[in-house]
């Protein structure tokens, strides 16, 4: 059982707070993605779990073992590094077998595991090559095979796909997901790519400025972002934000369109609507079309609602021209509401 528990972890570099009181539990065999922009602290958190960085405070537990004071080699984890860190003076086989050799695994078992994992990652024909003779994608495969060969309880991955080109990234993403599902390991995966996060994760922890803003299932993040930050970070194109003003209890008005929402005693409220959650209508939010982008299955329409930019994804057979005035009817159930000052979701 490899439940990872992160308790009150904080890390400061000088006066800079890279991580502020992080608490997170990753369930056994769960695939957890840490998602955030660069500098949000996600890699620092991963390195603290790996033992490559020591926390300023807090504890890290794997199962019933507290590991934050142990050196990296005693933590029973495996890791895939961003730049792969394939040892250049060792062959692919030696790289995959490195950890096993260090753990004094008998030679025949070592050979079996190297071959098995090379096969799993489709690099069995490269075993005698050096890293300098491999392409980026092949190195990536070696790095994953090396991590899997340890048969670890926990595998950590630091932006493992970020150095691959787009097509290869897509291919490796699918492959990684399959391989890790079969391996029964608990995985923590760091990325700044929300599509990667959504497609791989059982759960995603969105991080911002050294804090975990929301940790939830991908669709839950998408549908019910806990803060305005998550709402703006997840989804491409991002959510539309508009400010509505209070009319009466639970009713909010924006550009003459009245919407029913939460009852809070504020003058105004921030509401967020996904581009795909509006439809063309005879009434609704008045919008002036600025740009029409046909994307095949649908149209991406950029409009102005009042003075705010508003994007809508509409049916590809909608007859819309730039400069046209249209009405967009939001799907009220899909609207998310945020407090105008705390930016937290209100219901």
């Amino acid at each position, binding site marked *: 059982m490899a439940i990872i528990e992160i308790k009150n972890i904080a890390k400061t570099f000088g006066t800079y707070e890279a991580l502020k009181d992080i608490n997170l539990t990753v369930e056994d065999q769960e695939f957890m993605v840490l998602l955030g922009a660069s500098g949000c602290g996600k890699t620092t958190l991963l390195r603290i779990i*790996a*033992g*490559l960085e020591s926390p300023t405070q807090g504890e890290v537990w794997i199962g019933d073992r507290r590991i934050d004071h142990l*050196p*990296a*080699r005693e933590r029973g*984890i*495996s*890791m895939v*590094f961003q*730049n792969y*860190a394939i*040892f*250049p*003076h060792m062959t692919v086989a030696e790289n995959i077998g*490195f*950890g096993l050799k*260090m*753990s004094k695994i008998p030679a025949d078992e070592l050979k079996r595991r190297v071959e098995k994992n090379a096969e799993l990652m489709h690099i069995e024909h490269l075993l005698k*090559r*050096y*890293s*300098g*003779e491999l392409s980026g994608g092949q190195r990536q495969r070696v790095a994953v095979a*090396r991590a899997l060969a*340890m048969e670890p309880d926990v595998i950590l991955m630091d932006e493992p796909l970020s150095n691959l080109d787009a097509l290869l990234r897509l291919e490796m993403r699918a492959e990684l997901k399959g391989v890790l599902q079969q391996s029964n390991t608990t995985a923590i995966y760091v990325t700044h790519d929300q599509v990667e996060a959504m497609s791989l994760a059982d759960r995603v922890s969105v991080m911002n400025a050294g804090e975990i803003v929301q940790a939830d299932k991908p669709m839950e993040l998408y549908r019910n972002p806990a803060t305005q930050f998550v709402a703006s970070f997840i989804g491409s194109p991002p959510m539309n934000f508009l400010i509505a003003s209070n009319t009466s209890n639970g009713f909010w008005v924006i550009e003459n369109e009245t919407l029913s929402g939460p009852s809070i005693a504020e003058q105004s409220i921030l509401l967020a609507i996904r581009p795909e959650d509006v439809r063309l209508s005879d009434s609704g939010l008045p919008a002036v079309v600025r740009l029409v982008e046909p994307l095949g299955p649908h149209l991406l329409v950029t409009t102005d609602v009042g003075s705010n930019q508003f994007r809508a994804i509409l049916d590809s057979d909608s007859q819309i021209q730039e400069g046209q005035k249209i009405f967009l009817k939001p799907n009220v159930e899909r609207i998310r509401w945020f407090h105008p000052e705390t930016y937290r979701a209100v219901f």
Partner: protein
Amino acid sequence: MWNQAKKLPYLLIAPSAAFLMIFFLYPFASVITQAFEHSSTDGYSLTNFQEVFSHWKFSISLENTLLLTAAVVPIQLALALLMATMVNSMRKGRDLILYIWTIPLGISDLAAGIIWLVIFEQTGFLNSLMLNLGLIERPVALLTYQNPMMIFVAIALAEIWRATAIMLVILVAGIGLIPREYYEAASVFRASKWQQFIRITLPLLKPSLQTALILRVILAFEVFAVVAALGGTLFPVLMGETYIYQFDLLNSGAAAAIALVILGLSIAFTLIVLRILKVPKGVTM
């Protein structure tokens, strides 16, 4: 037609190339001719070499040179590796320590020999220390012909003190080039610090080790002033014999022959070092 831009590199290289031609290749060629010319024979012959090899001091000086190299270089290599690793794990004051450690490099080898002579001679620091500690009753002559081991140790110590830093600076630069990620990967994949040193540092340091070892071995074969200061005639080495032939015996043919022997040794050991520390084909560091 060459344009200006293509000519420029050659123009810039020309002075140094000419300088080396005049002051290195020409004397080198003339040493070779001298070594194979002898007044007793016409044309070229091996007479100088026969004369040198048959002299009783040759085998002793060859032996001494090789022994000294064999004793000094491995110790220097180990020390330089240790010091380089230590200095690389320092966060602060790294440069200061490096400057202090490399001070002996700034001192001429004769001066270095004299510094250690001041320690080891009969009225030297070592004697007064032992005297004050009551270990001896009167000053003893340490560097005499009855005490060849002592002379050897003194020379070896002086050489280690003087010339370890040349290896150190090369290795410090080499270790600094090894990406930290390799060590991180090694530590995650269960390697201890010692295993990291053996499995990561040493193999990735091969190019620097090659340079450091070749440079140091060649310098060790050319050892002269330190030996002259501490051992005088009691510890003959090849370079000293070259000097004696040239300036005391005025036999430049024989001197040239020994010089070529030293050159031969240097080339042979360079090839051996290159062979042992060969980087396998396909490895790009």
